[in-house]
């Protein structure tokens, strides 16, 4: 039994040494995190008293924008609340379209640039760095700033919104897609390279089938986010429901504010449900491939 207790002593000693090596790093990291949190609370003027004294005012605004709905005259009350429904629905439809078009265009840009941006695709360091910095630039500039620039250049309307969201989407999706590309295994690529395929065909036949489900999942998620972005971006005059929302907020038309917000919530929920369904279909088809041979090992 002595060699067993030798082994225990040896492994335990090595484990202690390893923990000593990583221990101070953990401590340093934890300390730095605590300092950063403290600093940001201080700089951001986060104060509990302010939060608690402000809460009633928050509630008051909500109560002010709520419509008067009574059960007895519900139909008429709803009609009064949603008096501008056709116009709002058209604007909402515009908003979803802005989100859709810009998601598609942003995804296309991201897709093609995500391969040079990945380190394992053999494009060389220069093009990898260029693609990555380009994505970074697109991500860093806020959508609202892009939108303001485009409103200045192309005038008020949806076009400015579409362009702004497209660029931001390309930046975010490009980073995600290139990182997904870096997770794939080189082994399966060798199979395609060894058959004499050029690099683009290695990507098409070896990489794309592996990354496609993750790509689709992220694109759908981005579409949901873009519906929200598209309604906010209207605030600077870049089309859609946001432009109307800004107008009623500025004019203190309280009941219209709640009507538009309610419609927005419903729209976003519908978009969520639809894209969730699509995503599940995709995942389900993956699973059914895997279980096609149920009783094999």
């Amino acid at each position, binding site marked *: 039994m002595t060699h067993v207790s030798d082994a*225990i002593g*040896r*492994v*335990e000693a090595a484990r202690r040494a390893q923990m000593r090596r990583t221990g101070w790093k953990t401590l340093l990291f934890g300390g730095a995190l605590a300092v950063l949190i403290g600093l940001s609370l201080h700089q951001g003027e986060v104060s509990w008293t302010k939060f608690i004294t402000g809460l009633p005012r928050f509630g008051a605004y909500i109560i002010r924008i709520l419509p008067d709905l009574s059960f007895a005259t519900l139909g008429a009350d709803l009609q009064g609340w949603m008096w501008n429904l056709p116009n709002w629905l058209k604007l909402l439809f515009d908003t979803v379209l802005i989100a859709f078009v810009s998601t598609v265009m942003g995804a296309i840009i991201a897709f093609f640039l995500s391969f040079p941006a990945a380190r394992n695709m053999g494009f060389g360091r220069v093009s990898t760095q260029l693609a990555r910095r380009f994505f970074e630039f697109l991500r860093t500039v806020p959508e609202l700033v892009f939108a303001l620039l485009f409103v200045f250049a192309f005038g008020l309307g949806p076009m400015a919104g579409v362009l702004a969201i497209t660029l931001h989407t390309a930046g975010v999706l490009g980073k995600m897609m290139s990182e997904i590309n870096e997770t794939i295994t080189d082994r399966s690529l060798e199979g395609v390279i060894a058959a004499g395929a050029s690099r683009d065909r290695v990507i098409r036949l070896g990489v794309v089938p592996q990354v496609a489900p993750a790509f689709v999942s992220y694109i759908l998620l981005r579409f949901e986010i873009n519906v929200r972005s598209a309604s906010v971006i209207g605030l600077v005059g870049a089309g859609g429901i946001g432009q109307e929302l800004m107008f009623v907020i500025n004019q203190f038309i309280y009941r219209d504010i709640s009507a538009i917000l309610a419609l927005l919530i419903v729209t976003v929920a519908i978009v969520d449900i639809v894209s969730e369904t699509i995503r599940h279909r995709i995942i389900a088809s993956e699973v059914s491939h895997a279980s096609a041979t*149920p*009783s*094999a*090992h």
Partner: protein
Amino acid sequence: MLEITALSRTYGNVRALEAVSLSVAPGEFVGVIGRSGAGKSTLLRLINRLVEPSSGEISFNGETVSALSGRELRDWRRRCAMIFQQFNLIDRLSVLDNVLVGRVAMLPRWRSWTMAWPVADRVVAIEALERLGISEHALKRADQLSGGQQQRVAIARALVQEPQLILADEPVASLDPHSTRTVMDSLARINREDGLTVLCNLHHLDLAREYCRRVIGVAAGRVVFDGPIEALDAATIRMIYGEDEA
């Protein structure tokens, strides 16, 4: 005593396993043989309850384990340790932590979340690794080990579960001949020294001949042979493996 009665599993309209009945006495080393897709994996997965039975019953020492749920089900899983063809280790954890995964069902939840394993459990894990001759790799990441070493880590994980039954699903199908021998010898030794019941799926008849006294032949989801290895004649082998491979 493991007793299986009229156990069936269907996937859609594919019958993976149909009306299987068998019993295994404590301390037996049973080989389950058959072609790929015959239902061997499904049988082992049903016993561990990784797959739910469509009908039939599994009982162990008189306790019906096919109806367990929640904590009792998890304790049953601890008692019948699985060993997989692809080892199923967590690549990014150390070998030692992988072995300690075998203790999860016995330790409080916060121990798992913090991975602050008690000394006593670490000692058990290192002993298991030492027994399988790989304690010098204890602190390496699991994916740095060779296939044969990884499978021995998986056996160590199974051992620290303190199981009553070991279910090995093609444990050597992805290993070279030398590693195959080490892994099968380890299983045989555990069976001999600890008296643990072992149910082992095997592709190859030669391995079954060498290590198992009793074999169960599975073909198209049914048990077509159950008896001592010596009783396997050419006709039975043809029935298990099909004409073309006989």
